[in-house]
């Protein structure tokens, strides 16, 4: 129940962000904060999947829930003009927006498979981590400055 409430809150926040005119600086800050939390928790899952860290179901479930909950939070913070400022987001995002959105949606759908996989077993987690990681990379390759 608690998890659903969190997901609902994030979804609502994302929807709200898309509606309102939030200044670019704030949008960028939200994006970076969200991805930082995702990166930290996803790294923990990957370390477990690769055997670099012992597989702990409770920790994995918590990591996976956070990654899944945050995966669509940033979607509403890629407004026009947010390629300028302290961001690695490339202007190409707004030039080929439909491709960017498709890659974003792919990442979201892969990230949402993580909570179940983390609660299942290590091989399931491994597969889900590989797929989600590939979805992250697909977008970084095209739309994130090095």
């Amino acid at each position, binding site marked *: 129940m608690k998890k659903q409430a969190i997901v609902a809150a994030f979804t609502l926040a994302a929807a709200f962000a898309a509606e309102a005119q939030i200044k670019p600086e704030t949008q960028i800050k939200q994006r970076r904060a969200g991805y930082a939390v995702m990166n930290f928790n*996803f*790294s923990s899952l990957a*370390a477990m999947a*690769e055997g670099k860290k012992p597989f702990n179901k409770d920790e994995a479930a918590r990591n996976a829930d956070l990654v899944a909950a945050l995966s669509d939070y940033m979607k509403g913070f890629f407004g026009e003009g947010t390629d300028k400022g302290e961001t690695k987001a490339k202007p190409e995002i707004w030039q080929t927006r439909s491709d960017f959105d498709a890659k974003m949606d792919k990442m979201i759908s892969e990230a949402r498979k993580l909570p179940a996989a983390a609660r299942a077993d290590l091989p399931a987690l491994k597969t889900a981590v*590989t797929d989600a*990681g*590939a979805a992250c990379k697909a977008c970084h390759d095209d739309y994130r400055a090095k």
Partner: protein
Amino acid sequence: MREAGLAADQVAVWDLPLRIFHWTLAGLVVFSFVTGKVAGPWLEWHMRSGYAILALVLFRLAWGVVGSQTARFTAFVRGPRAGLEYLEAALARRPLQVLGHNPLGGWMVVFMLALLLVQAATGLFVDDEIATQGPLAGTVSNALVARFTTLHRYNEWVILGAVVLHLVVIAAYHWGLRVNLVGPMVHGHMAVRAPVEPPRTASTLLAGVLFALACAAVYWLVIIFPRAAA
């Protein structure tokens, strides 16, 4: 007069450790490039390959000081004049016969070793900001990690350029100057026009010891030190 199975005008130029070093390094550079591009679960192997490259380069630096004559930096690192003279001769299609690295090739050896050392060293600090961090990324500031990551990503293309240049020059020697450079790097021998004194060869055992030391140093750097620092 002549050794069994070896013509009198053949002289040993590349010792066994150097040849093993060369081909292992070539294979690992290709493997690293591919696994770095594919990424995902292959990044684990990309990192291991990088550690092996670091150990190989460290070994080569040591071998360049105490190894066989043709492997020593003092034997092949020459000034710009020697390089220009050699280039002039090569362009006039009369390359001067050199036992070991010629003056231009010598610069290329130093250049490529430096590029690979930079690549392997920066790789230890890389954070791909998805799920993978180099073993030393946690020991320095994030600003430095970002800088090393950028360097690692750009240097990759400089290495690719150097590899292409290396291959183009080998092809030019083969078809343009009728000089086979690949054969000697495989079997170690080179044909000479007139009898020469063969270059002095260092002990293979010494090479083994040096490589073991290089591996131990890398093991300490990527496994023991990060654990102690954490």
